[in-house]
């Protein structure tokens, strides 16, 4: 049972702040690190894997300092985001070399096992340079698992994977978590994270924006005010009908036609809108969300 603890951690590069006063504890099980691109996820994973010094605060693994402490890699397996591997080796040679570097008693057997876990046994004797993106990802995974680490850190592991490979990796991560390992992976896709992780840590613009069970995060994200542009056969009648429902916070007529609507409860609004339109004999011509971008979702989380 290993625990990574960040206490008031900040990291800045000259005058750019990448991580701003973040405190979080990552324990056994699968944790998803969720945030838009550039939010500081990779910086956090670098800090947690001993490849970056915090500018302020402390990052520890079971109470031990991570920075400039190679001994921690006995318990940490790291899957970096970058694609580069030792392309001139075969998958098997690469994973075996990793096992040797860990000074495992039987590197060949450990590599064989790790490659089997990621289902790369068939392609293990091909040069890495011939691998697809998904296969590279799996070989990286095997190299991180070869010493059976208690902590597994993965930076955007689902990037570039096809749906089948994605399913397989999700299953693998779930299993690792169920075995009591501390598994942390980063992603910018909520759906991806909530399929695997019970615990979600959200970072936005270097700040720790939310933390908790995936259900709570999901509610936070879907219950935020949503804005839509509607066009209908009678905007004014529709507006007055919508305002009678508690899920609608506001409705404004657009000068060029159409209606801006702000809804506070996405689920309810989606049910109420067609019913109200039908009851008032209004034809809906267009319903379009105006700020569905992930950034706006995260921006809302930060402000709340």
């Amino acid at each position, binding site marked *: 049972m290993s625990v990574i603890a960040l206490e008031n951690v900040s990291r800045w590069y000259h005058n750019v702040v990448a991580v701003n006063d973040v405190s979080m504890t990552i324990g056994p099980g699968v944790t998803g690190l969720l945030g838009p691109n550039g939010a500081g996820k990779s910086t956090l994973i*670098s800090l947690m*894997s001993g490849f970056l010094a915090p500018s302020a605060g402390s990052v520890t693994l079971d109470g031990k300092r991570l920075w400039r402490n190679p001994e921690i890699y006995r318990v940490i397996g790291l899957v970096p985001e970058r694609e580069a591997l030792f392309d001139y080796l075969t998958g098997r040679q690469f994973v075996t070399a990793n096992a040797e570097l*860990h000074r495992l008693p039987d590197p060949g057997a450990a590599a064989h096992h790790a490659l089997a876990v990621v289902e790369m046994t068939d392609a293990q004797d091909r040069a890495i340079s011939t691998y697809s993106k998904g296969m590279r990802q799996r070989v990286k995974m095997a190299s991180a698992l070869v010493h059976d680490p208690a902590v597994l850190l993965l930076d955007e592991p689902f990037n570039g994977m096809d749906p089948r490979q994605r399913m397989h990796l999700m299953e693998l991560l779930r299993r690792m978590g169920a075995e009591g390992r501390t598994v942390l992976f980063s992603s910018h896709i909520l759906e991806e994270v909530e399929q695997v992780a019970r615990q979600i840590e959200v970072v936005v613009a270097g700040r720790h924006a939310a933390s908790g069970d995936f259900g709570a995060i999901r509610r936070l994200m879907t219950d935020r005010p949503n804005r839509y542009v509607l066009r209908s056969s009678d905007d004014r009648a529709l507006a007055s009908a919508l305002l009678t429902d508690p899920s609608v916070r506001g409705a404004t007529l657009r000068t060029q036609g159409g209606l801006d609507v702000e809804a506070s409860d996405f689920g309810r609004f989606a049910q109420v809108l067609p019913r109200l339109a039908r009851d008032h004999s209004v034809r809906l011509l267009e319903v379009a969300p105006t700020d569905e971008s992930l950034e706006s979702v995260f921006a809302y989380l930060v402000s709340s």
Partner: protein
Amino acid sequence: MNATIVRLGVRAVLGRRRGIMLFILPVILILLAFVVRALAGEGTDTAGHLLPPLGLHVLLPLVALIAASSVLAPEIDDGSIVYLLAKPISRFTITSSKLVVALGCTVVFAVVPILIAGLILATGTPLLAVAYAVGALVAGTAYAALFTWLSALTRHAVVIGLIYVLLWEGLIGGLVSGVRWVSISWWASAIAEAVDDRLRLVSPDLGLPYAVIASVIVVAGFVLLAARRLQGFNLTGDE
């Protein structure tokens, strides 16, 4: 030293296109030795005219630069060094293993060819060839350590290394005698001179003890500096 890192390092150097240069450069030196011998005849003078400028001041540092930079720089550049660093191995072990590979290449592709070229040019006086080779071995070690550190320090290691070799070791060292005190290839000459005292390569004040001590300090210093640099390796790139 770590056998796995050495093995991976050898494959990294010889597996790259740059590795071909390692084969071509010594072949040129040996061919030139044959040509010069055919034209000017065998003798210590012929050897003295060809080996220091071409062997010690050009081939040796170039080979060390190519070997040291291909053993470390590409891995740092593309981030794959992280697979070596994310292991419970001291950074000093990683650096010295990399240095062993760079040095091995320098011996095979520079020191041995200098010995062969020496024997071709001065067949009658084999001690002369040995003297040059010993000097080359010490200087090669110092160069390998210097360029290993340079590769860990900057992605422009090859360019900076070339400028250093051509300007400092080559041009300025030849013109300004004071520079010889801080020039690796001139220490090599001093050591060669000590092995075979018929050689008159450097001003006599730069003696053997100084050359040996300076070389040892350079090797130890740059290995430690390179290890320190890897200790501070940032996964997300340097600021």
